């Protein structure tokens, strides 16, 4: 069976990548094939990477407060590219109200500080229906 590919991305200008790197590593250790984009990626670059790599999910890490515009843009671009089956999830300093709005817009799940990594792994496996 082909491995399940996930892109972990740092959109926008935020340089805090401690969490993104930990999640990338945990997902890799759980059997996913992980592509980490590195810092300062535009939504366009992230979506292009996901399509080129044939990824099934994109995880966005944002701690700068720019999550509303960045998540929305990534979802829009995926739709434009006909790739709405790519699952988008994310984490960071994201207030409850914004989280609810993002879930409504089509984001699969938002994990805020303190979320156990196993919870993220379990959720992603469930959402992608993969049993690794």
């Amino acid at each position, binding site marked *: 069976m082909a491995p399940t590919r996930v892109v972990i991305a740092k959109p926008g200008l935020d340089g805090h990548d401690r969490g993104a790197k930990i999640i990338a*590593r945990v997902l890799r250790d759980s059997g996913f094939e992980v592509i980490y984009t590195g810092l300062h990626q535009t939504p366009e670059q992230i979506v292009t990477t996901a399509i080129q790599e044939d990824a099934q999910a994109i995880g966005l890490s944002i701690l700068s407060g720019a999550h509303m515009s960045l998540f929305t843009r990534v979802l829009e671009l995926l739709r434009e590219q006909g790739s709405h089956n790519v699952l988008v999830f994310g984490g960071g300093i994201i207030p409850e109200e914004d989280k609810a709005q993002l879930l409504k817009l089509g984001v699969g799940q938002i994990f805020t500080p303190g979320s156990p990594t196993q919870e993220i792994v379990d959720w992603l496996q469930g959402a992608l229906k993969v049993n690794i």
Partner: protein
Amino acid sequence: MTTEKPGEYPYTRGINPDAGVWTMGQYGGFGTPAETNERFKMLLEQGLTGFSVALDLPTQLGLDSDDPLSLGEVGRVGVAIDSLEDIEILMDGIPLEKITQVRTTANSIGYIWAAMFVALAEQRDMDPNKFGMFIQNDVLKEYIARGTQIFPAEAGLKLSTDVIEYIATKVPRWVSLAMSGYHIRESGSDAIQEVAFTFANAREYLDAAIARGVTVDQIATTLFTFLSSNIEFLPEVAKFRAARRTWARLIREKYDPKEANSEKLRIFAFTAGSSLTAQQSMNNVVRTSIEMLAAALGGIQTMHVSAFDEALGVPTEEAAMLALRTQQVVAFESGVLKSVDPLAGSYEIERLTDELAEKMWEMLEEIEKRGGALACINDGWFSAELSEKAYEFAMSIESGERKQVGVNIFKADTPPYKPFEINPESEKGQVKALQALRAKRDNAKVDVTLAELHRVAVSGENIMDACIEAVKAYATVGEIVNELRKVYGKWKPTRTF
């Protein structure tokens, strides 16, 4: 019992013989310069003696507010500064001479920040040495930990050194560099790496400036270090003591200074943002109280206490005020300032101090063997070390080996918290003001000053004077950085994790 006295080499017990109150500088800024100006005036009325200007990410990365990459980030994590006009608004009605310290997170754009305040002082017909400007300017740690780098590391180092040279020779009252371990610690390092990586970076700046003919004494006396104050109380007290001892030894053994002041490490401590939790966020007040007490007992010169709601968003006015009050209670009620280094002689404190200082020195030697900090940045060694430690830390919380109240023990539902909301109109307002500026300034003059900046950058000379001229012509942060990008090229992100 230790025989070393406070105020004596190697300054383990403090750089001064007597105790004194530290500078209480809280970190803040959001939205437009006018909004931040209002918050600063409020805090100054409440007893703040210095403050720190948090810059938004576009500004820190040298992007104008109307750059497509800035969309949604303008005024978010700090205030947006596009040109000298914004600094005029930011500092409007604030008497610079009454403030002991204005700090800033300008690193990759440290030279623009310095230029703007030189220009502002000139407007006010004031000697810039009459106020305390504290420029972070530590670009090397951006490549390791904080992520606002713009140019390749060699160019970043060159520009930071330009600022250091300028300040050391022309505005010695200012702090030219805050050697920053805080962000390295926040990225996952332990206390030894925090100090050793930071001092290794400092050696790159020192060596580069000395190679230009500036003396170690001219430079070292304009330096501060910026360290984390974390939750493990005794090791943190010991860390501040060990850092002073290590710095004094480093300067004495490697640089042969003439002045004793060059060996004295001035410390700015900031309570650890990463120790704060989103869960049961009021518990963070207790955490920061412990952390700041460690810094106070560790003998620091300047302090910031984090607001309890930092893991949830930009601090509210109430949270920012409570953080300042926390400092005031510890400083003025607890009696902690009655003596210097009161924990000296404690078996555990002395043991930890010796152990940490020894290991910091060993790690500095290892970095030297690896070719120095710049080599360790470019070959990814620093980043790999930090990722490893960050992963270990995360796993120790998940396994329950390391305990965090509200996170992995004593969990409870807490009512939802409403963090500070950034005015969504701020971004539009800032973009409009920038566009109005471009329409009203003398654009021919802007072009001439930018061309001169380009010429100086190509020549390899210090760009500070040319940058000051560009700033005075109201060239924007983005325009200045774009001009330099033509000369230095771009930093390329790495995909390793």
